[in-house]
């Protein structure tokens, strides 16, 4: 019974953020991502025909536009945070042990940072900043 009563106690220790704070970030990034992705799609279809917007010159030209870069970077950050936290939540339910849970948390944060870094690098290179 004593062992059973300590269920869930292990997850109180390794936490920089409380679960409610993490979920607040999760919900806010989710709602914000819907907004920025909607703006992104509107820009793809409202300014010029969709096929034309995907031509090489037009894509590169997009990366010269600072507000558009900010939009792309926001999509990258918001979707990464929301998506990787969602993945963490799914994996937490898959197995229960402190080792697994801490491992999943560390791995998802690392993968999130790596993806944001790689995406940001792409934006910087396409913008031409990397060659100056």
């Amino acid at each position: 019974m004593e062992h059973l009563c300590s269920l869930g106690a292990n997850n109180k220790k390794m936490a920089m953020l409380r679960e409610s704070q993490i979920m607040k970030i999760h919900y806010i990034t989710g709602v914000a991502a819907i907004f920025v992705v909607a703006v992104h799609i509107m820009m793809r279809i409202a300014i010029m025909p969709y096929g034309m917007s995907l031509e090489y010159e037009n894509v590169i030209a997009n990366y010269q536009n600072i507000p558009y870069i900010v939009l792309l970077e926001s999509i990258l950050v918001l979707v990464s945070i929301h998506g990787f936290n969602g993945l963490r939540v799914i994996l937490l339910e898959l197995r229960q042990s402190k080792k697994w849970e801490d491992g999943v948390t560390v791995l998802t944060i690392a993968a999130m940072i790596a993806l944001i870094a790689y995406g940001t690098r792409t934006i910087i290179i396409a913008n031409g900043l990397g060659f100056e």
Partner: protein
Amino acid sequence: MTEQLIEKIETMEKKHEKEKHQREKEYPKSSLTLKIYRANRRAGESPHYDRIEVPVQRWTTVLDALLYAKAYKDQSIGIRYSCRMASCGSCGMKINGIPRLACYTKVSELQGREITVEPLSNFPHIRDLVTDFSQFFAHHHNVEPYIQNDIADMQEKNKLTEFIQTPEDVDKYLQFSYCIKCGLCYSACPTVATDTQFAGPQALSQAYRYFIDNRDTAPKERLNLVDNRHGIWRCHFAGSCSAVCPKGVDPALGIQLLRGHLLGYSKNEKKVAELEERQKRD
């Protein structure tokens, strides 16, 4: 005269026969088959189903049928029950795949001539229809399901302390206090099925029940108890807990309301009450 009498008797007999057919049409189940899950791993008995024919009436409950089967057909059937009136929550089991109280489910409300009874899901199995509730009660225990009040003077044993509540105060938690800890919601919860450390709908709704009670003075501590990796945030709001509750409790509602308080967007009634009290004093 005699012919008239005979005719009258025949008419009455026909009427009686007609009524009998009508009754049989309305309540055709005079007997049905119980398909009972049987397993006793300790004794090396592998899981299987036993089919037992039992006589039933319109008012027969599944528990009555099981007890008949146990008394007259197979005394080795493992079953847990106590009050037979949906008060103790002992006889929870899956009836035709849905978690229900056997004493609260009449055979007449079930479809078909065969009723399948199985032990509750998400509980460690002991024998036949009996499951182990230790983990379930441990989760309940973890949310500290009792009033915590620092203001009340409990030192003076002879002095009675009164907690005055308005009907509105009671309404906030009343439905959650009807919980009989039968474990049906826990059995129906899809999150519990994958995450054994998840507190479950029963414990979380009880956390809300004591959180919202204005006699309790430890709301922050209560929120901290459920705000962890396997706490309130793992609820996917499937709502199956509320659908199966035999006492009309809505655990899913309690969980969502408690989440609102954790996210900070719900109106905190306690703070409002304190401010009103302070205004009155000033």
